């Protein structure tokens, strides 16, 4: 059903020829010093960096281009040029007790940065390795729910707007921005088609590569082979101009995306506060581990993978719990998809079970038809953190579900609720400390690695006890 909301928003955008806002509250934190990082790789060299532009919101980019990133020395020079920039930024965030945030243009660019970070950690240059480590913070955080460390402008914008095109088409930042702020008096599809002429990811246009860039790089390499310094400088300058022509619009579009989302029209979202705190705490731990010399492996051991997946699952739960409380749109989606019970209070009463033992019960009715509920489920009032109920029965009669429950917490508050009140109930408040507690338990449980997750299978140990002649019959007699 939540998909239906998305379809309706897209149809409305199509009808209006302009993207529509799908939320009123901000969905992403924008850090004051957030870095915009735009990189272009060379065709066929996915983990290369041919050109880079780096800067902040409201600031012109610093750009560096190498003539041919396939030459390792040139490539490393570019990466070493970037290191002080990020080292300083990370140190500043650390000193302020906050976290670094990197903005890229699209999910494709995000993937490029993530892959590059992994690759750079295993080079033989310490400075390049260090840059890889710093970027790995952003890369490793990127798939985790609610993370604020590495943001793709397209994902951030589509969390706020729906366009009249397909979701995959929203991955082109230029097209997406055109939907959000269409040029007046022009057909939206013509404007989008024009915007799509400009590359917005991590790669240049194949036609540009074939017609302009490749010949220029070939001439540069010939000049180098011929030891012709003047020609070399000339062709390097030409390549610089060409790449700047591509990378500047991507950087500017990313800035534009940030500017749109910085607009004060987006209301405060309290869910983001705790996400920011978690991000800062994760960043502090990451940097401490680097200080202590812990390696960042390419592949996880079984034990490390268990810790990581547990942390991810807990985070998903906490982020969902935070958003259904504080984000109006998330709560509506929850009510539509059935993860939030939106029920009308039909009855609440205090029942005497025994002398001085009472139970507070309530009954809610709802017409929600996708409700994921069963007896035993615990639900919390999303607007009153003190009230918690335990479902005892869910009965569907006609188009209405009747939910009976016992009040576990907030009995007095429950009895003061008016019959006919509409309550939103859902998961418990986010419990960010739960991950720490679970990790402590996992450390105990995994203190000695089980053989099932190690290299060697133990030998068979036949029993020395007398075996019954007819084993099956002997066991059946026990059943």
């Amino acid at each position, binding site marked *: *059903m939540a998909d*239906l909301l998305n379809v309706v928003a897209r149809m409305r955008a199509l009808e209006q020829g302009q993207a529509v806002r799908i939320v009123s509250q901000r969905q992403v934190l924008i850090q004051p010093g957030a870095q915009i990082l735009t990189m272009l790789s060379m065709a066929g060299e996915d983990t290369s960096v041919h050109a880079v532009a780096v800067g902040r919101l409201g600031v012109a980019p610093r750009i560096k281009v190498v003539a041919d990133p396939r030459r390792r020395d040139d490539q490393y020079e570019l990466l070493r040029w970037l290191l002080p920039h990020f080292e300083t930024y990370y140190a500043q965030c650390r000193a302020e007790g906050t976290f670094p945030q990197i903005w890229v243009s699209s999910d494709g660019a995000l993937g490029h940065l993530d892959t590059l970070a992994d690759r750079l950690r295993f080079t033989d240059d310490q400075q390049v390795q260090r840059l890889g480590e710093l970027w790995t913070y952003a890369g490793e955080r990127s*798939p*985790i*729910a609610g993370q604020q460390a590495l943001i793709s402008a397209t994902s951030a914008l589509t969390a706020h707007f729906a366009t009249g095109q397909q979701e995959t088409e929203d991955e082109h930042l230029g097209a997406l921005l055109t939907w959000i702020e269409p040029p007046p008096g022009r057909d939206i599809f013509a404007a989008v088609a024009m915007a799509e002429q400009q590359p917005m990811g991590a790669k240049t246009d194949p036609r540009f590569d074939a017609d302009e860039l490749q010949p220029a790089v070939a001439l540069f390499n010939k000049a180098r082979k011929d030891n012709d310094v003047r020609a070399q400088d000339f062709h390097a300058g030409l390549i610089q101009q060409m790449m700047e022509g591509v990378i500047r619009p991507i950087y500017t579009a990313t800035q534009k995306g940030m500017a749109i989302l910085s607009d004060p029209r987006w209301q405060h979202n309290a869910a983001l506060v705790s996400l920011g705190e978690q991000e800062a705490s994760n960043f502090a731990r990451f940097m401490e581990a680097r200080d202590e010399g812990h390696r960042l492996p390419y*592949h*996880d051991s*079984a*034990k490390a*993978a*268990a810790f*990581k*997946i*547990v942390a*991810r*699952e807990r*985070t*998903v739960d906490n982020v969902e719990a935070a958003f259904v409380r504080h984000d109006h749109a998330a709560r509506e989606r929850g009510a539509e998809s*059935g993860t939030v019970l939106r029920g009308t209070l039909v009855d609440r009463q205090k029942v005497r079970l025994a002398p001085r033992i009472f139970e507070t019960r309530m009954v809610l009715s709802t017409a929600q*038809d*996708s*409700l*994921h509920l*069963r007896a*035993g489920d615990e639900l919390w009032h999303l607007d009153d953190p003190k009230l918690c109920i335990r479902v005892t029965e869910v009965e*569907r*009669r*006609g*188009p209405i*579900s009747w939910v009976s429950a016992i009040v576990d917490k907030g009995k007095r508050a429950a009895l003061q609720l008016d019959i006919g009140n509409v309550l939103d109930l859902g998961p418990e408040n986010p419990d960010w400390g739960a991950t720490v507690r679970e990790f402590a*338990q*996992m450390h*105990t*449980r*995994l*203190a*000695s*690695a*089980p*053989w*099932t*997750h190690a290299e060697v*299978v*133990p*030998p*068979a*140990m*036949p*029993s020395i*006890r007398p*075996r*019954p002649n007819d*084993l*099956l019959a*002997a*066991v*059946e*007699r*026990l*059943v």
Partner: protein
Amino acid sequence: MTDPQTLADEALREILESQWQGVPAVVLRSPPGAGKTGVAQRLALQSARLLHQRCMVVTQTNEQAFDLARRLGRNADGFPIHFYARKDLDLPADVRTNGNIRVIEEFGHIPQQPGITIGNAAKWSWIDTGEAMFDLQVVDEAFQLPDYRFQLIANLAPRLVMIGDPGQIDPFVHCEIERWRCNPAGPQVSSPAALVKRHPGVMQMSLPVSRRLNTDTVRLVQPAFYPEMPFEAMSEDRELRFDVAGIVPFDAALDAVTAGAKIVMVELPPQLTGERDEEIADELVASIRRLLMRKAWVRDDGVVSRVSPEMIGVVCAHVSQVNAVRERLGRDLAGVFVETANRYQGIERAFMFVHHPLSGRADASAFHLDAGRLCVMLSRHRVACWIFGRQGIAQQLTRYAPIGDRALGIDDDPEYRGWRAHLTVMSWLANAGRLYPAVHGMIASAPGRAVG
């Protein structure tokens, strides 16, 4: 040719024997309704009573733990069974009052002498020690346990038996797992599959017989969902008959079962409806009413009884579909058990009515194509199964063939597996002449509308 009972006995004997040999691990694959829990029960009793070991039994849910506790609690000699549960767990009355079942809440109270202790995987993972506390660990429904959860309990015993159905719904991991996608023994993989990948030499066995499914159903379910795991039906003695004769064409799908077609499909005219399809719900409930109205009798392994609502189940892919059916049942059909496929795992009924997961959809997403989901839906019945869906599902499958999104080093492609299983089912039903046009609900819900 060996009869099914002998095959089943031989397999059980071999599993029990493996414990006398002290093999470090056994992965036991089971088709639907093959008596997995019965095997777990026997292994536990053998371990504690004959081998004088400390045996822990792991379930995935509290409901499964209750079921196993009930079975073990009925043991012949009144041997005490320990149930390891959290303090505030609401135990069913029959478990709470069973004299043979002793509930323990602290791990320090787990008996030191040979015995059997049952608990769910989550509870076991909070035991406050890193040492082995048992001799044998029996994991029931092991294919529902992701490897990272299994890792947390794996060292509680040096020897393992992992029992489960590999054809059912994969473990549910609700976070992003791309990082481990290329690892066939990754943390998200089902624990027996990950164990076999890490240690291919561990003992692996399959149960050869389904006690639940009938022969006709096995002919469809085995090649569609278990192409590499042959099995057969234990019983041929499953029959449905009616005191009231059917009317052609209204009762054709019901009467097909009396003629031996134990799994058939009822098709409604093609239409895009989204998740909730009121007409399918109408048709399905009208068919249930007709089944009962015609005074049906069932013969199940020699026991003849009148068909009652309690013998009937309805399984759907989505909660909204479950509610659409429940809304129509009324008090007289309150005994009909309606649930989603996820919650139907481990449950059986004599008669099942299935809302086809692809019905009424324009696309075929990974959720709806999931082979495990369809397998659960088509393998809950002992006697007969009626599938309800919109016409054109086979064409829909052809339009939405898998796009081939593969991961390096991973042979398994769940989307393709699901797509192939769906196509096999639809082809089999069509070739066997098991497709019937819908009639009941159409009349009941929309009087005056043209039929046929």
